[in-house]
């Protein structure tokens, strides 16, 4: 039994090593003074300096972040209402239809979504740029949020709502004091899923960027033809570290909340 668990631990370590190896490889070479990913010549911070001096690159990073934050926030709001609507539809047939339509949007290929948006936007005369990217990111994030929130809603016992109504809560109070607090973890999960999807989406964004507005994924992809400079390694390292900080921060927040929940139920 003990031997077994040792083996499984080893397996786990191996899997993580494989998953993280490319990232650490990339980080390692971001400190290379040699200028290529072939041989490590010496330690330098030049590439990091270059990242902060390249205003164009910085603007693109900020664009990427603002699009990710705004689109995931807006799609979280829309998605939560969507999930509520799907849960409280009475007819089973309608409910299944709505759910299937939501799932179709998740599994349909990004390239198709991107191309359709390009055609739609140019047809109705929206200039490609910030608005078009934001709208399309919201569009592909909403179904993801719905999927993340739905299980929480279904898990919630309907007697909770009934009890609240019996005690005289209005519809608004039921929503804000009973339902939303209960599904908060689902909402956060949906938000973070949408955030990561938006950050790394290439296929859809590629079609709808334009007029001097670009995001990181598109920019790095077109750099690849000439060979990617180590500045990109440095930038990727920074983004990876920020992501880790966010995850650790989120972990501590949920830890604290769990402890609080144990002491007092009301919030």
């Amino acid at each position, binding site marked *: 039994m003990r031997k077994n668990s040792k083996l499984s631990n080893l397996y786990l370590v191996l899997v993580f090593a494989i998953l993280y190896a490319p990232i650490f490889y990339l980080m390692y070479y971001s400190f290379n003074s040699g200028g290529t990913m072939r041989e490590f010549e010496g330690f330098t911070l030049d590439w990091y300096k270059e990242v902060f001096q390249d205003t*164009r690159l910085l603007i693109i990073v900020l664009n990427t972040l603002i699009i990710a*934050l705004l689109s995931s926030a807006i799609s979280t709001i829309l998605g939560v209402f969507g999930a509520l609507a799907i849960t409280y539809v009475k007819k089973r047939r309608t409910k299944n239809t709505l759910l299937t339509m939501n799932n179709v949007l998740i599994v349909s290929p990004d390239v198709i979504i991107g191309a359709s948006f390009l055609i739609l936007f140019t047809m109705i005369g929206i200039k490609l740029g910030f608005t078009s990217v934001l709208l399309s990111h919201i569009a592909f994030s909403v179904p993801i949020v719905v999927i993340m929130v739905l299980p929480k809603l279904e898990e919630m016992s309907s007697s909770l709502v009934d009890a609240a109504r019996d005690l005289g809560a209005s519809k608004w109070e039921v929503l804000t004091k009973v339902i939303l607090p209960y599904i908060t973890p689902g909402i956060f999960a949906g938000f973070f899923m949408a955030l990561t999807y938006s950050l790394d989406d290439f296929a859809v964004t590629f079609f709808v960027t*334009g007029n001097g507005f670009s995001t990181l994924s598109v*920019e790095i992809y077109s750099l690849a033809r000439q*060979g990617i400079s180590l500045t990109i390694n440095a930038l990727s390292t920074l983004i990876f570290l920020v992501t880790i900080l966010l995850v650790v921060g989120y972990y501590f927040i949920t830890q604290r909340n769990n402890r609080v929940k144990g002491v007092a139920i009301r919030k």
Partner: protein
Amino acid sequence: MKQLFNAFIAIAVISVILYVSINQLNSSQGYSGGNTLTIYNWGDYVDPELIARFEKETGIKVIYQTFDSNEAMMTKISQGGTTFDVAMPSEYAISKMKEDGLLIPLDHSKLPNLKNIDTRFMDLSFDPGNQYSIPYFWGTVGIVYNPAMLNGKKITSWNDLWDPEMKNKILLADGAREVMGMGLNSLGYSLNDTNEAHLQEAKAKLNTITPNVKAIVGDEIKMLLANEEAAAGVVWSGDASEIMGENEKLDYVVPEEGSNLWFDNMVIPKTAANREAAHQFINFMLEPDVAAQNAEYVGYSTPNKEGLAILPEEISGDERFYPDTETTEKLEVYDNLGKKMLAHYNELFLEFKMHRK
């Protein structure tokens, strides 16, 4: 609920901060002004210092955007919704864009520096009279090889690749025109040959090279050759200079039978919003010292004769990338063969790819 509300406020605050800092950065670059020029180019295909110099000299603010393939660029431009003022497509894309009415004729009176371009590179089949396009960079298709892996043997012609000694040592770029062209050239035919008998002959000849071919690959050919996974590879000269930059043991040759001559060109798409600035920019790029500095930064061959004269001897004297007149006379630009013939080329190439040793 409170938690959700706080998170929402936090996101709003961060967004506002981001928005303000983007604006700050933009105005520090002067992007907010009215007189802007949007350039749509390949990634990292112009020296950023030159853009800064252009902005300083003219007061026009430049927005630089990038694409990764001619097809992607054409899609964006033909769909509209963007205002690209200058783009840099390759020659075959120009014929297509011309046919589709995506380009604006250039006003040569606004381009006095046009005289600096080598006449060899003007008035070519894809754009007679340079009505729509001005050459930006040019290059060839040739063979990168590793003398150390071939016992010091030198490669000079396409036919050297058929040598039985090269068994399983060759990489080919995955392009129908390039590989079929290699077959046609090795037999002494034109790259643009449409004679069915010649094409069949070329394909039959290509079939006999299969034992030597290790793989037919895409962009990874650069990495494979630099890492010495194969002794020779058929590539574009732009890729070749990159590969040789990574691994100095390698050498590049334009085969003596002749080969392809390719171009990336500056054009003004129909979506242009600032045609005046677009002409100014093209004229600026044609200035000899600008062209020279750009060629040094990008590493491709410049068509600018005056610019070439300024470049250091070790670059301009490199016959691998600036072949002498005798070699360039044998080089051919791809003609637009038409949809049907192109499909036939693709078909023959596909048959070659499927041919088993």
